[in-house]
């Protein structure tokens, strides 16, 4: 089953990442400090950037849209914390933990596997540490995040597209 598989080839590893809590957050950028307070993490306001720490990450997806990734316990604690922080200020927090899953792709040259289906420039200069974006792999939409300076990529994909994406990534990796 692809969700449990680990594939190693040419010094690059493709693996399914453990389950986690996920939320789609929408709010006005001006109200970002409220979300930051509830998250315990600065909500990134710069386009295409993510912030991470203490088992949580916030990925900028649009000017008023973020993807929150967190260790499982957050599924229970984050919604009430956001409600407290926002009070009467409008916001939307939708739990999407089961909607998507994640793959990790790591190792020197891992971006060449992504280049098989992703049209973005993934060089250090264009897609440095801390960069994230929604984009495409072939015809499958994914969220791509590079958490740090090492060649390691976090890939979020909606569950029904995951077998196709995984098969495509696997083929690309084994073709190297």
């Amino acid at each position: 089953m692809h969700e449990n598989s680990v594939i190693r080839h040419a010094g690059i590893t493709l693996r399914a990442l453990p389950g986690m809590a996920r939320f789609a957050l929408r709010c006005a950028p001006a109200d970002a400090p409220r979300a930051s307070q509830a998250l315990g993490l600065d909500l990134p306001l710069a386009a295409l950037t993510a912030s991470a720490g203490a088992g949580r990450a916030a990925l900028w997806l649009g000017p008023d849209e973020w993807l929150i990734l967190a260790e499982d316990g957050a599924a229970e604690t984050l919604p009430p914390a956001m409600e407290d922080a926002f009070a009467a200020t409008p916001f939307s927090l939708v739990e999407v933990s089961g909607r998507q899953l994640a793959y990790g792709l790591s190792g020197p040259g891992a971006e060449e596997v992504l280049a098989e289906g992703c049209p973005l420039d993934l060089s250090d200069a264009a897609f440095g540490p801390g960069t994230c974006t929604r984009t495409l792999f072939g015809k499958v939409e994914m969220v791509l995040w590079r958490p740090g300076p090492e060649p390691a990529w976090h890939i979020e994909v909606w569950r029904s597209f995951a077998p196709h994406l995984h098969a495509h990534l696997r083929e690309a990796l084994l073709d190297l």
Partner: protein
Amino acid sequence: MLLIRCPHCGDRPEVEFRHGGEAHLARPPEPAALSDAEWAAYLHQRRNPRGPHAERWRHIHGCGRFFNAVRDTLTDRFLATYPTGAARPDGTQQGDPA
């Protein structure tokens, strides 16, 4: 691959975008006051110029936002992109009616 400059994300590949029709169409404030012909014109009649054309585009596989662009329909060259709500940039006059 053609790159399109999203006002939020910068230069991005064209496959991440969807065309959204003619830009700067204002919904009539009082539709009930219009004749059938005027309402039909608002709903259905669009310019189809040969040359620069102001269009809505959506960065659907990126930030998800709509924005406006002036694109030359003859060459497919994007002359400008700008946020929804902003005025059409100077120097991007509409092309001739086809």
